[in-house]
């Protein structure tokens, strides 16, 4: 019953049983062959003891499956490394104090939802006075000068505005991710910044429910913040990372 963290397996009701639930659709008509197909597919993926527990006819030759199966592999939990914005967490006062001491002036932060993304709630949660989950937003920080450009801002427009305001930090939000449109938009922004010779002058940060720090680094950003981010986490990172880079 003592879990071996070097060999972690899914848990149904017994340590090591490997139990997993799956649901999926196959573009085949319902029937015994469909059930068998679902089973074989999971077996081909390496699952064991596959049990198709439900099928439903969804019309137009599609079948819905619910299945349970055992995952035969395990992973070494002790070896897991998660790339994370590697600065200590400072609270509201500490962050302002840090900027005052280490940078000595207000940092200019410009933010926008780029592309055709109109989901401002997440960016507003981070940037606006009101903040999020009881935590003050960046606008409330005396040592930050904050410009929220809102939604549907084209990358060119954002870069122009950043130049005009002499931005120290650029924040971009991407919520719509269908067909990987966020990757497209985020990549484009980096390219424009580089083309304009601005990339090295700013701290470039992105966020959104499907953004991870890892992904952000891959795309050439300095940090990425995902679902449930609180404004002070962002402010704290900005302060320390900016000072670090401009030492």
């Amino acid at each position, binding site marked *: 019953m003592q879990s071996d963290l070097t060999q972690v397996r899914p848990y149904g009701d017994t340590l090591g049983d490997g139990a997993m639930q799956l649901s999926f659709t196959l573009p085949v008509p319902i029937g015994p062959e469909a059930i068998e197909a679902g089973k074989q597919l999971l077996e081909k993926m390496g699952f064991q003891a596959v049990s198709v527990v439900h099928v439903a006819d969804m*019309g137009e030759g599609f079948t*819905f499956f619910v299945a349970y199966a055992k995952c035969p592999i395990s992973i070494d939990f002790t070896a897991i490394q998660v790339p994370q914005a590697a600065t200590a967490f400072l609270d509201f006062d500490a962050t302002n104090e840090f900027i005052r001491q280490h940078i000595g002036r207000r940092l200019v932060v410009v933010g926008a939802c780029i592309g055709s993304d*109109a989901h401002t*709630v997440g960016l507003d949660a981070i940037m606006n006075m009101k903040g999020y989950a009881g935590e003050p937003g960046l606008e409330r920080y005396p040592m930050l000068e904050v410009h929220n450009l809102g939604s549907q801002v084209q990358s060119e427009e954002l870069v122009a505005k950043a130049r005009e305001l002499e931005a120290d930090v650029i924040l971009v939000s991407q919520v719509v991710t269908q067909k990987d*449109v966020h990757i497209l938009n985020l990549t484009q922004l980096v390219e424009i910044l580089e083309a304009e010779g601005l990339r090295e002058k700013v701290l470039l940060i992105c966020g959104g429910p499907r953004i991870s720090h890892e992904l952000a680094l891959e795309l050439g950003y300095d940090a990425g913040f995902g679902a449930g981010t609180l404004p002070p986490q962002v402010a704290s990172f900005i302060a320390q990372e900016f000072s670090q880079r401009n030492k």
Partner: protein
Amino acid sequence: MSIQLRLDQSKIDAARAAAQAIAQDIQSFVDRHTTVAIERAVLRLLGVDGVSIEQIPLPNIVVDTVARAGRLNRGVSFFLANAMLETGLSAQAVAEAVAAGELDLVQLPQHPPAVVQAKLDRLAQVALDRICTKRREREEMLRQYPSGEQPWLYVIVATGNIYEDVVQAKAAARAGADIIAVIRTTGQSLLDYVPYGITTEGFGGTYATQANFALMRQGLDEVSVELGRYIRLVNYCSGLCMPEIAAMGAIERLDMMLNDALYGILFRDINMQRTLIDQFFSRLINAYAGIIINTGEDNYLTTADALEAAHTVLASQFINEQLGLLAGLSHEQLGLGHAFEIDPAVEDSFLWELAQAAMARQIFPQAPLKYMPPTKHMTGDIFQGYLLNGMFNLAGVITGQGIQLLGMLTEAIHTPFLQDRFLALQNARYVMRAARHLGEEISIKPGGRIEQRADQVLSHALALLTRIADIGLMTALEQGLFADIKRSRVGGKGLEGVVQKAPDYYNPFLAPMQQTLATAAGGER
């Protein structure tokens, strides 16, 4: 029958009166203006379609040339009809000639205004007849293949690929859907033109094009016949092309259209003057085509808190009702929006949802209210999401909503998979069957928590409407009174497309549509 609340009728009356004043104020502004989109819609109704070799839609090219000449204030149709008289060409041929640079509409010799207008009125009548035919087609379909009981089950398809959408829509119909909406790709509502042709790529939705409309209509007609139940088709008017899309919807026999300037202003940052003007003509077309509109109040609760801002939804419904009536829509065409968006962590949240839903139902008794599912508080926990949607479906059937937009268990994750939609339909069918007559069998405690809540929301809405009647709707939007969002009167997209009408302005559709609708409304009374 659904549950009944005792509401203060005098507050309802006062709120409605305030909304009427607000709407009339807007209408007098609207009446003085036209827009590029309205003029393009007129062209479309008159038969102009297609794109240039640079893929620019002909209605845009024609309107732009007239606009560049500074004469859009006379109405583009005057120049079109004049050119038709002058050249003997069809509307389409004229437009093509303009696009090819072979014809300068404004420079052509002008026939006497009365002659041109007579020509135009005849052309318009053809267009109106065409729309009437579509309207009768729908009525005939509905006679042969009647709809099921309300709430009607409304689901979306949004793959980006119209072919994929059609398959999914048909599957949904088979699984019990009454209404299919094709969601647009994210960027489309900001385009100041309507894309052309069949499309197979989009982000978070499929392009709204006339060809796509037709393809989907055909698919749904097939399945309607097969199932013996008419499946309604929905698309979106809101955005920079409200009237044009309304025209396309009328021609392709759409049955419902999301049509709300306030949505465009608040959520797409479209200029308020532009879109309020556009809205009027687009709704007129919807009204004439027998299309039910859906308004977007539900969206307010995605940016503002559903408990705190409930009254803004109600206030906006009152305004949309009055604006809709002014555009000739009947009460039965007013699919006013509201939503089940209270944080499920709140104690008694289901009571507050019932209060709001029942209140809306009683205040707008004839309207096929569009009830939106939880979205904001949906998370990646698809199981909990499925349950939340079930409680929403229960609220819908108990309070007798008209249009139940089904929630997807994967709302927080992706646009719906085929199986998500199938499960949503199964959810709604079970809950509504299991509680079909519950609304009839329970009564709400007089003066209890639920009634108190409804009264509170109504009172706040009345106060808000009184204030807006005072300052005007545009100022209210500038002050951020809706959805916690502030918009400037001259900001946002599309203001450049607004044109003050000249004294000689002419739009051949306004008078006949308004007259027909007024007569119909009179007849109803």
